[in-house]
């Protein structure tokens, strides 16, 4: 690969400014088209029948009465989605989750689906589908599922990662261990040891737009899918694999996406919609209701975590260990493993050991949620670090500074760090006015750090220079939070033209090469790298065209400030040629001018943040209120600072909701009790203060402009920062998230 991704310090003209986003007008006028805003001629309406049981064997499904309903055009069950997964367990889990086969594994698991001419007929048909269930014992709690007497969800699961291999099946799918040194020896050297168990409840990404798609299978084997997704190329691959379609014949168009946060990285309903369309021979529109979104799409893990940290009197940590149990829903996951890797990643530790257990429960299949698994681990560890600071009588920030990881530190998950930003965020926190502001009555202050890996990945971009010299940038990473604006800035910067002369669009799967999803904070990081590469390729073409125009050798042409220049005096003082001038003549100098790029954007660079928050607790009711909140995070280079701030603020708000309110509540029958925004309460405008942000810019050595991903890390510290603030306010260590009013009252009662 000739493209050099190494960071080169430069003065920016466009990058770092705050222009208006290109999709702004569409979005404020109601014209932007999301998943549910697209229709096709002759389109049918789909509805999904879902299991009312947490765990049940499906003995049979009789659809004959439903098929007889006038207007019903197709009904599908697992029989219409045969297993083509060829032993790929991950793909089989996706298939089984889309449509239950032998067993319904959770309340809300899809068992059948109907396509009809209208909603009324579809709903009527759902009522007439007869499913013969044998209800089985269920388990929804992560700790209960690990007990030896718990109902076993899958008789073929034997825990991997333990020696000797177990001889009986269990709900623990895997044990993963990380660390180095000798923790026993480290604890023996400690003057003080803190040890505590923590729990966090299951939450949902809570995107406001429910999953929606329009699927169309044609008789010639071609198919189209319009869908709200974080990764249309990945959806194409998943759907093609599950339905036995040729990848090239399935064209997936990503609509505007109404929030994803990891929850739109997984297919749920799309293969079902395609199966219905294939069977009915007509386009099918499938929109999940909010209740279905909660019951059957992407929750995060519920967790149970034990943490032990030992330190000398001077605050130096001598050993740290954690055992993390994460629920993954009914299928194996690697969520605890991620928690085990990230838990102590902020610290420089001689002796550290973390062990993660993946646990099956009768809840929806866990999906990624913004820095998946890291917030819960950070909650437990950062609570313990705070407790340690109290025990030692050392300032909470100073204790973290003393133990913070730095360049050369062997990380708790294994590798040695390059240049990292944890130290600078802690120093910024220490000197931030928030840290020294006075607190009011019943108020407490907390702070916490967070870590996330960040990814890059496969990326493909086209940059077309139009006849008028303006630029169309076609990217394949879905824009979830303003990346079209930041990528336009990047193209403008590299070409030396005005931001307004660039129009970025998200191309569909038929018009651009493969792109990984917008996940792992990769959208702007990786597509900006590809955009820089594409722009440099276009510049090469333009230099050639200038050489032709001037009839001089190519090596005498160079590019600067948006113009081709003739080098040296030997070519006279030729006026430089602008992009517009070169574009105008393109037809006579070799045809259209374009730059293409395909690359793997690796080297995203790990990311750190420190958050500070003040909470006021009402001791009468146990209710709490965030009165001040500050986010400090390293962005590498903030391309469009407004949208970097937006990521910081949005992640913090989601973390605040997780910390204080949000939780899946299950009844004794294993049914979800709160599948709606009224009872699953995400933060509303009146719950929050302004969220202050401080962007640090420590250039990423592996990106030409120093850019790092910024999307995810902001959700990692809030759970711990809030728990520490509430604990400081009430004088009792809060160890169970969400810290809802009943839990605060119980803590106060226990204390009083």
């Amino acid at each position, binding site marked *: 690969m000739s493209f050099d991704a190494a960071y080169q310090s430069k003065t920016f003209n466009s990058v770092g400014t705050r222009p208006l986003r290109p999709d702004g007008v569409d979005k404020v006028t109601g014209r932007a088209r999301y998943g549910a805003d697209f229709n096709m001629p002759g389109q049918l309406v789909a509805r999904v029948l879902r299991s009312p049981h947490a765990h049940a064997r499906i003995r049979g499904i009789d659809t004959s009465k439903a098929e007889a309903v006038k207007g019903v055009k197709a009904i599908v069950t697992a029989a219409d989605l045969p297993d083509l997964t060829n032993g790929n367990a991950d793909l089989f889990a996706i298939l089984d989750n889309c449509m239950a086969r032998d067993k319904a594994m959770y309340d809300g698991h899809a068992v059948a689906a109907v396509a009809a001419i209208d909603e009324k007929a579809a709903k009527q048909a759902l009522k007439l589908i007869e499913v013969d269930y044998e209800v089985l014992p269920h388990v929804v709690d992560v700790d209960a599922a690990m007990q030896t007497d718990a109902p076993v969800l899958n008789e073929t699961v034997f825990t*991997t990662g333990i020696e000797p291999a177990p001889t009986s099946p269990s709900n623990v799918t895997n044990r993963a261990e990380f660390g180095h040194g000798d923790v026993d020896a480290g604890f023996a050297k400690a003057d003080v040891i803190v040890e505590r168990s923590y729990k966090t409840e299951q939450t949902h990404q809570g995107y406001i737009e429910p999953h929606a798609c329009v699927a169309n299978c044609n008789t010639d084997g071609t198919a189209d899918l319009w869908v709200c997704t974080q990764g249309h190329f990945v959806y194409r691959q998943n759907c093609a694999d599950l339905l036995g379609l040729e990848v090239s014949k399935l064209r997936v168009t990503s609509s505007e996406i109404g929030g994803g946060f990891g929850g739109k990285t997984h297919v749920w309903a799309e293969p079902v919609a395609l199966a219905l369309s294939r069977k009915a021979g007509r386009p099918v529109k499938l929109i999940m209701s909010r209740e279905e979104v909660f019951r059957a799409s992407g929750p995060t893990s519920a967790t149970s975590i034990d943490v032990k940290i030992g330190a000398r009197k001077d605050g130096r940590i001598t050993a740290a260990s954690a055992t993390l149990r994460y629920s993954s829903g009914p299928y194996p996951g690697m969520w605890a493993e991620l928690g085990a890797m990230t838990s102590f990643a902020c610290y420089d530790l001689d002796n550290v050991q973390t062990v993660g257990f993946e646990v099956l429960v009768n809840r929806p299949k866990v999906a990624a949620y913004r820095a998946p698994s890291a917030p819960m681990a950070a909650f437990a560890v950062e609570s313990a670090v705070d407790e340690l600071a109290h025990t030692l009588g050392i300032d909470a920030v100073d204790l973290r500074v003393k133990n913070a990881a730095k360049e050369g530190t062997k990380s708790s998950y*294994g*590798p*040695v760090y390059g240049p990292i930003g944890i130290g600078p965020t802690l120093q910024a926190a220490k000197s931030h006015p928030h840290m020294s502001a006075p607190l009011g009555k019943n108020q407490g202050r907390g702070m916490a750090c967070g870590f996330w890996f960040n990814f890059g990945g496969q990326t493909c971009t086209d940059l077309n220079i139009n006849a008028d010299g303006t630029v169309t940038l076609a990217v394949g990473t879905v824009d979830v939070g303003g990346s079209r604006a930041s990528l336009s800035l990047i193209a403008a910067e590299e070409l030396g033209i005005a931001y307004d002369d660039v129009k970025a669009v998200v191309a569909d799967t038929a018009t651009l090469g493969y792109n990984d999803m917008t996940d792992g904070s990769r959208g702007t990081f990786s597509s900006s790298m590809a955009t820089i590469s594409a722009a440099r390729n276009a510049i090469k073409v333009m230099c050639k065209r200038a050489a032709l125009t001037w009839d001089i050798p190519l090596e005498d042409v160079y590019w600067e400030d948006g113009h081709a220049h003739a080098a040296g005096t030997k070519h006279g003082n030729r006026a430089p040629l602008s992009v517009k001038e070169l574009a105008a003549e393109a037809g006579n100098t070799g045809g259209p001018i374009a730059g293409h790029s395909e690359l793997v954007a690796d080297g995203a660079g790990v990311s750190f943040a420190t958050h500070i928050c003040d909470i006021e607790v009402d001791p009468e009711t146990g209710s709490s209120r965030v009165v001040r909140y500050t986010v400090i995070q390293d962005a590498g280079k903030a391309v469009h600072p407004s949208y970097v701030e937006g990521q910081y603020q949005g992640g913090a708000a989601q973390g605040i909701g997780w910390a204080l309110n949000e939780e899946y509540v299950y009844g004794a029958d294993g049914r979800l009790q709160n599948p709606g925004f009224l009872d699953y309460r995400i933060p509303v405008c009146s719950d929050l203060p302004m969220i202050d942000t401080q962007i640090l810019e420590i250039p990423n050595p592996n990106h030409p402009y120093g850019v790092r991903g910024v999307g995810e890390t902001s959700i990692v510290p809030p759970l711990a920062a809030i728990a520490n603030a509430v604990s400081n306010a009430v004088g009792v260590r809060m160890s169970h998230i969400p810290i809802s009013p009943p839990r605060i009252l119980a803590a106060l009662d226990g204390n009083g």
Partner: protein
Amino acid sequence: MVDVTLWAGLRPLADDQKTLRIEATTIRELLRKLEAQYPALAGPIRNQIAVVVDGVIYRDDWSATIPEGAEVFLMRRLAGG
């Protein structure tokens, strides 16, 4: 020569070794040699691997060079949000 550290789940597939010494200058060469020596690693290498070279995580770019004496870890390919 580079020392490659395997994640715990891979060790049973490589004679229970935690660290392997391999002669390789790129990730691709490293993985090819690992697979040749320990055929049981082929599945994980194809489907679920990330390679960390001196702290930088590579998930796809197997052309990345491995400097002499670099610290190399095989990690599970991670999910993001």
